[in-house]
């Protein structure tokens, strides 16, 4: 490709209230360049103090999410050519709705604490000495679990959700998607406690079905639909007095 140069605006410092701001860098444009490649170039060739996070570079670990031209994205699998503006603009900021540690790195603790609060951990009754559980791939439960199981915990949905911004205690799309996946895991024994955990004000009923999570999830998961499933299941359980 030609020797063109990208002008990239990258967030530096903490959040805006402690003086964080965008700085512009010139980065050589390359073929098949990802947004993560751009950030890595800046750190390796221009300013080694730039902080950001990544691990796998192939869309598996979920650590590289940032806000690219205003939208949350996984940066290792986002090609520059797909997101760059007509004017060639590229703006890279930390994920929204999470505390900024420094530059492009956010503190993911609130995000994962909410997974724990939504009882996102599998709880089974069997041991490794027992035989495999047999779950038909065609059963409705297995299908519903399949729909959400590929989540990589990147936080893109969380950083896109208005309700997370409006109500900081809201568990958020990823934790609720995880809860819904486990509610549909027929081996799991923690169903009742989990439904209780997601039934409150911070849970599924706070979702306004804006669909930003579903629109942005890089894995094509639809947390909006999982949350709708939780609303139905919680409602039914409450009506039966099971909660």
């Amino acid at each position, binding site marked *: 490709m030609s020797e063109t140069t990208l002008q990239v605006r990258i*967030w530096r410092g*903490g*959040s*805006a*209230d*402690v003086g964080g701001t965008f700085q512009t860098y010139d980065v050589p444009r390359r073929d098949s360049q990802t947004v993560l490649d751009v950030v890595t170039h800046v750190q390796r060739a221009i300013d080694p103090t730039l902080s950001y996070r990544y691990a796998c570079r192939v869309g598996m670990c979920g650590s590289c999410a940032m*806000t690219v*031209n*205003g*939208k*949350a994205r996984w940066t290792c699998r986002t090609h520059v050519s797909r997101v760059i503006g007509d004017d060639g603009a590229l703006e890279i*900021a*930390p*994920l*929204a*709705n*999470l*505390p*900024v*540690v420094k530059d492009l790195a*956010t*503190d993911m603790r609130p995000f994962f604490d909410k997974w724990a609060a939504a009882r996102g951990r599998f709880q089974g009754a069997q041991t490794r000495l027992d035989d495999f559980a047999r779950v038909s791939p065609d059963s409705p439960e297995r299908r*519903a679990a399949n*729909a959400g199981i590929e989540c990589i915990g990147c936080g893109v949905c969380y*950083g*896109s959700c*208005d309700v997370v*911004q409006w109500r900081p205690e809201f568990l958020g799309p990823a934790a609720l998607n995880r809860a819904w996946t486990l509610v549909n895991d027929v081996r799991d024994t923690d169903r009742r406690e989990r439904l209780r955990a997601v039934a409150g004000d911070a849970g599924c009923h706070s979702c*306004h*079905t*804006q*669909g*930003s999570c*579903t*629109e942005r999830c890089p894995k094509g998961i*639809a947390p*909006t*639909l999982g949350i*709708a*499933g939780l*609303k*139905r299941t919680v409602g039914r359980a409450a009506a039966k007095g099971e909660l």
Partner: protein
Amino acid sequence: MTMRRNDFRARNHPAWWAFWLHRVSGLLLALFLPVHFTLLAQALHGTAALNGLLRLTDSALLKVAEWGLVTLLALHLTGGVRLLLIEFGPASGLRKNWIAGGVGVALAVGLAFALSLLA
């Protein structure tokens, strides 16, 4: 440590606009309802009082307002059906076809109402 907040770029997608339309049409309808009921309540004070008020509705401005109301109602209704489908229907994405269809139907209803006003 505080957080970054999203701007319009993060919200600029069909499902978010559908949410916005539903919220705004709902709020406007909620504002209108007290007026509507006050008017209806006039019927309790006899036909003269009601007729006096109803004559007001002949004015052009109120006609436009009525057209707006009907359109808002149609928008809110189709948007509501979409939400019910997402929440209770078989899983099928964000049902963006309903957003487009709903807006189309609502505008058509509004136009039909406008035509009937002119007739």
